[in-house]
């Protein structure tokens, strides 16, 4: 199982790096989907099949489809590629790159000192996940649902069809 973990981690890292460097947006999205699938596999190996299934179902299957949908609708084509190429100019990414490498170094330093947990623990069943969600983490679930509701109301407001302007009539107060 350790080998599966390392292989899928490697796939996830490579795919994510490719997401950043692709010029074509749809190709970047394809790599992002691969990265999410690899992360789902990591969850599965770590003994959380329920979370793995949800990762594929929600992130790879639903949210990314929306991304694809919007990008296909905008269909930026060559114009978008030129803009992406400009972003890959070293003068733009070298600053954030150095800062990110510093953070990565700190993360590795912290992790090296720690005792690492075993990669394959006991399997967490759907029932345990639900009990945790609606027990100790009920507040988090409620907050997330309020956030989603706000998003829904906002989307409704933005997508609402504006009534055609009426000619002012004398009956109106």
């Amino acid at each position, binding site marked *: 199982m350790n080998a599966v973990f390392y292989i899928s981690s490697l796939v996830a890292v490579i795919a994510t790096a490719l997401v950043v460097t692709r010029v074509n947006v749809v190709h970047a999205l394809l790599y992002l989907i691969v990265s999410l699938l690899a992360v789902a596999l990591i969850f599965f190996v770590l003994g959380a099949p329920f979370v793995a299934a949800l990762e594929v179902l929600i992130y790879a*299957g639903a949210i990314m489809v929306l991304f694809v949908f919007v990008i296909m609708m905008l269909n930026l084509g060559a114009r978008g590629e030129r803009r992406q190429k400009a972003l890959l100019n070293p003068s733009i990414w070298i600053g954030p790159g150095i800062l990110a490498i510093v953070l990565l170094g700190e993360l590795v330093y912290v992790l090296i000192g720690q005792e690492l947990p075993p990669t394959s623990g006991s399997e967490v*069943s759907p029932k345990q996940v639900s009990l945790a969600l609606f027990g100790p983490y009920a507040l988090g679930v409620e907050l997330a649902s309020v956030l989603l509701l706000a998003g829904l109301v906002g989307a409704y407001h933005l997508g609402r069809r504006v009534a055609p302007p009426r000619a002012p009539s004398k009956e109106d107060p």
Partner: protein
Amino acid sequence: MCEAARSILVVVGVLAGAIAIAAGLIWVERRLLALWQDRLGPNRVGPFGLLQVMADMIKIMTKEDWVPPFADRAVFVLAPAIIVVTALLSFAIIPFAPGIGVVDLNVGLLFFLAMSSLGVYSVAFAGWASGNKYSLLGGLRAAAQMLSYEVFMGLSLMGVVILAGSFNLRTIVEAQEDMWFCIPQFLGLVIFVIAGVAETHRLPFDLPEAETELVAGYHTEYSGMKFGMFFVGEYIGVTLISALVVTLFFGGWNGPVLPPIVWFLLKTSLFICLFILLRATFPRPRFDQLLGFGWKVMLPVSLANLLVTGAVTLARG
């Protein structure tokens, strides 16, 4: 050793069976459509036209496999494979009979939903990569349609999960020994079948490829075996949805006298015929009607079904 050989045999058998049934369906569908529309259908090649499948295969394999120069080559080639792979992977979780099945997964039902949600990419990317406006419109329609109907598909199955108390398909079949779930979950069944037709984008929900408006939708630019993959993928999808309807709502392998596997296959073929009858009967709706029907009718009904099922289960303790 014997155990390993057995599981490999089951995997190969399921794969070969699914593909063979999907290929055979090409003939079955054309003959049944002809029967219901008072025509003859393909009856020239071999007895009853049975060899028509072979003739079609030879034709499609030997056609020129062409990638248009304006297409995005890598994505164009990848897209048709996705639909076949995700549909075939879903067969892994179906319990055909006691002891026959590829994998006994605890989150089996979620695995199916996950695979069907990945299947959307096939048509969406095919439409985009073709570099053709009709294909792109077909791909956009497919993405919107499948994303919408996935929601009700998942919700309609939760009633079954509540009654059986598990996502494991084997446990769900065993829970139906006394009563098939099509009785307490009739609404769930209706919603699942409608969503299943939409997911496989067959008539009356074949708007992504509506040939009267969009040439052939997302697969306009495809030819040869790449087109064949979409074609076979659709039939594998039909077989998969039928097998799932049987597993989830009609007691799976349960049935008197005959051996379990025979019951399973009989029930599945009945539902495949129902799918074909739907195609022979219904006209195609407009796209806004399709989405409106989904969000305004199917969503409230499936939520109400979930609420009532949960309340009744809670009340009965």
